[in-house]
């Protein structure tokens, strides 16, 4: 009969109207600034750099400026310059580490490819800025976050990383001890088992940083 | 020469009638010609109401009833007339009265 389908539809909407007052399943809005969803541990949005010593956030960065992430980054939003001493010898730490998070697409590939567990994904998402260029171009100082912060964001993952690093350290210490004893073996590279990092070769074609025009 | 309300009404109606007449005669757009004729019909209706209102026997509702009938007929006229206009338009792609000289399409 004409109209039965319409009545059925009206019944559904009426059920939802009433349900929105007593059934949390039918009232799903989170009123955002007051109430925030609990982020899952895996949540990612923009990368940050992990440092181990809160007293020296820049000096204790795990990053060795190997530029793997810079090469692999799909939108090429990472810009790294290795720090060098006066003689031009690489110091294995970044002098410049910039991430333009207005270009970053939160793909996490930098995290995956980093052999030193130095770059991790942040979860801080309230990053709206009125300044399109300077405000979203994060430098080494802004990117550097403590390991404790990393633990806070991704506890499981961070624990695994810490265990791995501790294991490596132990191995390194053992290697050092072994080296001290026979003093013949070459030093083992401090790297995870899977992929030894290719030699950091800052080529001439390294992507230019997204130079912001002067405001 | 005195002008009572009845005369005023009649003058009003004559003026309206002439406006309709001039429009119907001068325009070549069929729709406007029809509208001019409508206007003349309306002017005639004005007379009926005026005579009913100021006439000797307002209790008899004849004037009002005549106007009601006239409005009904005018509606019919408008409906058929405009249907004709659309038919003409579909046939000759314009609504100029001068060119609608054939009854057979």
């Amino acid at each position, binding site marked *: *009969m*004409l109209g039965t389908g319409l009545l059925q*539809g*009206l019944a559904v*909407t009426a059920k939802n109207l009433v349900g929105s007052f007593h059934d949390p399943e*039918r*009232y799903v809005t989170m009123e955002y600034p007051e109430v925030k969803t609990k982020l899952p541990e895996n949540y990612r949005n923009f990368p940050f750099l992990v440092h181990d010593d809160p007293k020296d956030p820049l000096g204790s960065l795990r990053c060795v400026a190997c530029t793997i992430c810079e090469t692999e980054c799909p939108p090429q939003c990472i810009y790294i310059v290795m720090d060098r001493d006066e003689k031009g010898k690489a110091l294995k730490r970044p002098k410049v580490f910039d991430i333009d998070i207005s270009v970053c697409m939160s793909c996490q590939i930098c995290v995956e490819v980093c052999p030193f567990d130095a770059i991790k994904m942040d979860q801080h998402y309230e990053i709206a800025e009125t300044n399109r260029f300077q405000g979203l171009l994060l430098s080494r100082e802004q990117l550097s976050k403590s390991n404790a912060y990393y633990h806070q964001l991704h506890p499981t993952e961070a624990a695994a990383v810490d265990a791995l690093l501790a294991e490596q350290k132990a191995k390194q210490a053992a290697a050092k001890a072994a080296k001290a004893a026979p003093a013949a073996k070459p030093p083992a590279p401090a790297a995870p088992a899977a992929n030894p990092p290719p030699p950091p070769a800052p080529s001439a074609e390294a992507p230019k940083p997204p130079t912001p025009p002067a405001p | 020469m005195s002008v009572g309300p009845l005369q005023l009404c009649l003058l009003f109606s004559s003026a309206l009638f002439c406006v309709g007449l001039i429009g119907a005669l001068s325009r070549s757009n069929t729709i406007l010609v029809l509208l001019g004729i409508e206007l003349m019909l309306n002017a005639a209706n004005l007379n009926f109401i005026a005579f009913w209102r100021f006439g000797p026997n307002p209790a008899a509702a004849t004037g009002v009833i005549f106007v009601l009938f006239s409005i009904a007929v005018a509606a019919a006229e408008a409906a058929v007339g405009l249907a004709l206009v659309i038919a003409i338009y579909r046939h000759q792609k314009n609504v100029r009265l001068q060119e609608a000289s054939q009854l057979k399409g």
Partner: protein
Amino acid sequence: MSLPGQLSVLFPLASGLGASSPLAAVLPASDSALERLPLTLRGLLTGWLPASWQWLANSLIAIVVLIVAFASLFALLTLAERKILGRVQNRPGPNRAPLPFLNLRTYGLAQPVADGVKMLTKEDIVPDGADRVLHFLAPIALLAFSILTLAVIPYGRLLVALDLDASVLFFFAAGAATELAVFMAGWASRNKYSLLAAMRALAQLISYELPLLLSVVPVVLMAGSLSTSVIVERQGEWWLGFLPRWYVFTPWGLAGFLVFFVASLAESNRSPFDLPEAESELIAGHLTEYSGFKYALFFMAEYFGMCALCGMAVTLFLGGWQAPLPFLSFIPSYLWFAGKLLALLGVFMWIRASFPRLRIDQLTRLAWKFLVPLALINLGTTAFWSLTADWAGLLQPLRWLIAAGLIAGPFLLLGRNLSKGLGPRTYRYAA
């Protein structure tokens, strides 16, 4: 003759809140003070004026009260509509606009104020190439005609702004002009979407004016009057002493109410008949090129029209301001009217939240192939009902049965014809 005298000649039966109503005598002596409250207040305000000015003052008061009451109802309705729509869609609806300076949210009650401020401060844009005069006149005309229709609805016992002998006719005459304004808006905007909307508005009006009027004829037939006050009075009796004799509780009244309801959804451009402003097809239809205050006027007029049609439906079929049960008569009549009006408006919103939109050819087909025949058959049924008014005893149920059959049969047949070729389908699966 003084100015008010001239005006009263122009509208001989206009009487301002029913002072010279033919029904003035029916106000029961036992009426409570609450029931008389509006009249008492008006008496306090205008009682001291000379007689010829009193009429003018009363009319002005009626106009001001009507506009203020419905403007505030409009503000509340916009909020209520969004709240209901929100709740149906499992969200809270607007609830954040705070009261100015207090920072109190009060469930979004300040939202209409915020909307109003926004509307008033927006730039008024008239497109290049638009017909400026018509573009300007359209919202004003629409609002004016919508307000006119509000004048003849009896809001309570003796509470009618314009108690005409032919008020039902007046209502439809004024209501018919609203689509003209929609057309003006659409055509004057010089926008193709608006033009399409204007065409749709015209087609819709022509189609739905007829069932709307035809569905009212039975009521006029049974009440024997075109006056809304009389129609409400006639529904004031009781079956068996306690069941209300509203027209909707008869077979022909129910059918007439449904036809009227559907047609009034179309007349007020409400979903599922909101084709002139179909946002998914025509952006905003005739409103596309309107902004700021003009847009607000359109919005307001739309709600006024909706209120007027709902008020008319209440008056014609739902017993107007009559209480549903005899012992509830102590509640003032205007409150009953307000309750029924709000309930009907709620149904309008509920429907808007539930249904998609029809297509223009389906819309006209529904009118011509379903509503008009049904209304005509309903007219015949009403004639039967009126002829068998003296059937009593066992004949009474028979009368009900015959009348119900006369409605239900054609309803089923017409419905089947209308939905020919449509229906749920069964699907096969690949082997």
